[in-house]
């Protein structure tokens, strides 16, 4: 294409839209964090740092830590399960792999409210798991599985597992099979081959999956709200509360800011790891 103006012309409507309806609103939030909540719930336009300070107050900071902990746990479990599943799919005959992958990823594209609700059905006191147990003859009092931290973790793992399977599958499927054969030929057992050759070479997929699940989990609202119950608060719920019940928009904005900062930090770290691991990509295809 000769002139440089034509592509810009094509791009501009979308860019303008994104600017007006994403960049500006986010900048607004950034600014809002420094104002004060008005007496009747509006916004008092005085410049203050007290919202940000409040974020780091132990009461609220603990919620950040708890959210991070839950996000980390969910990401870890999802990565173990996801990698195992991806490895299994990559080990199947080539012609079956696309279909298996399709079915592994399919749930991911369905409504996540519905998927989360499914666990309510399974876990609640009158729910399916309890009924199955009763049916099998268990007489005792089963602990409530719903409205617990564990339920939230299950819900998060459930929602994001398909993506991890996808991201782990990519490097696994591109692995040159002669490399694992070479490891065996040189005397390594199947387990040693996995530990010293396959795993290091496919780590980028795990890293991507982990960061993705972590980032989406830490800011998640629906899963803790539905599976965690009224008492349970993660950052997402906290922000929601500030905007809809407590009417303290500036504080909500401050919380969001810190959340985004954490996310960006992680994404940048992941980009750095991906750069350094790109040496491993050479093993795919011709040696």
């Amino acid at each position, binding site marked *: 294409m000769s002139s440089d103006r034509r592509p810009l012309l094509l*791009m501009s*409507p979308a860019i303008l839209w994104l600017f007006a309806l994403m960049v500006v609103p*986010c900048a607004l939030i950034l600014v809002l964090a420094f104002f004060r909540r008005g007496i009747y719930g509006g916004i008092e336009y005085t410049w203050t740092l007290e919202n940000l300070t409040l974020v780091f107050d132990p009461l609220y900071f603990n919620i950040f830590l708890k959210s991070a902990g839950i996000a980390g746990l969910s990401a870890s479990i999802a990565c173990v399960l996801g990698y195992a599943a991806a490895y299994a799919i990559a080990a199947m005959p080539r012609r079956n792999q696309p279909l298996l992958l399709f079915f592994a990823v399919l749930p991911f594209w369905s*409504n996540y409210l519905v998927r989360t609700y499914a666990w*309510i059905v399974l876990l609640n006191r009158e729910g*399916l798991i309890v009924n199955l147990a009763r049916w099998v003859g268990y007489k005792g009092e089963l602990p409530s599985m719903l409205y617990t931290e564990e339920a939230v973790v299950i819900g998060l793992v459930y929602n994001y597992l398909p993506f991890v399977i996808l991201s782990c599958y990519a490097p696994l499927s591109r692995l040159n099979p002669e490399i694992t054969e070479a490891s065996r030929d040189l005397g390594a057992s199947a387990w040693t081959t996995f530990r010293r050759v396959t795993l290091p070479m496919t780590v980028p997929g795990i890293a991507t999956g982990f960061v993705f699940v972590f980032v989406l989990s830490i800011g998640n609202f629906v899963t803790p709200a539905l599976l965690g119950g009224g008492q349970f608060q993660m950052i997402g719920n906290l922000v929601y509360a500030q*905007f809809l019940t407590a009417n303290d928009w500036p504080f909500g904005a401050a919380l969001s800011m810190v959340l985004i900062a954490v996310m960006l930090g992680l994404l940048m770290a992941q980009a750095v790891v991906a750069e350094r691991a790109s040496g491993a990509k050479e093993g795919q295809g011709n040696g």
Partner: protein
Amino acid sequence: MVERNTFRLMLLILGVVFAFLYIPISVLVGLSFNESGLPTAWTGFSFKWYGTLLENDDILRAAGNTLIVAIFSTVFATLLGTFLAIGVEIRRRNGKWLETVIFAPMIIPDIVLAIALLSFFSLLGVKMGLHTIIVSHVVFNLAFVCAVVRARLKSFDWSIIEASSDLGSSTFTTLYRVVIPVLMPAILAGGLLAFTLSVDEFIIAFFTAGAGRSSITLPMQIYAMIRFGVTPEINALATIVMSVSVIALALSQRLNKGGLPGQ
């Protein structure tokens, strides 16, 4: 050479993971056809809950709203996203900032985007309703359409554009008669993806719908039902909503041979 035992282990892993993924969903689908509607007892196969759905005005209205939002936001997002993708790929040197802005909607936590938009609309004094939801949905939808179309453009044979110019057509004609037709499967796939995402989207809609009852979307309705009063027809609703996503995704895959982000 995959030894026998390893193969069996692989099958076991796949079995466990697929069971984990599909049992919860299957339970919902099964319950939707359960006459009693409760997990405690199966009293027989029945369509009754689907019937109840059709009589529920709130749900019907919400479904209607969702369709309106989805259709409009998909149309806008597809147009904007496609042109964005074409522009970006033609202009090979794009700054990091541009790439960040284009990918941002997919990475920003939805709750942050939701409150940002709420604040924005409030500040401007805009009265909120379905139109604000539509406008908000376009934001992330166009990013997804752009990603899908860009993926297709990576393997695009640019020399056909030169051939088209050489044969005398203007930029607009080339776009209209050469580029778009070749991209059509990806555009449709991206559109279907955007449609699905919009139909399922909850939190941004929740925050940008405003106070009125007239702008409640289906996910908002579902959320309210889960939170405040679970009735068995919710299983039927869930089944229908999931089927829509599945069909849209399957169609999208067929059209574009797996050109979804991440694949």
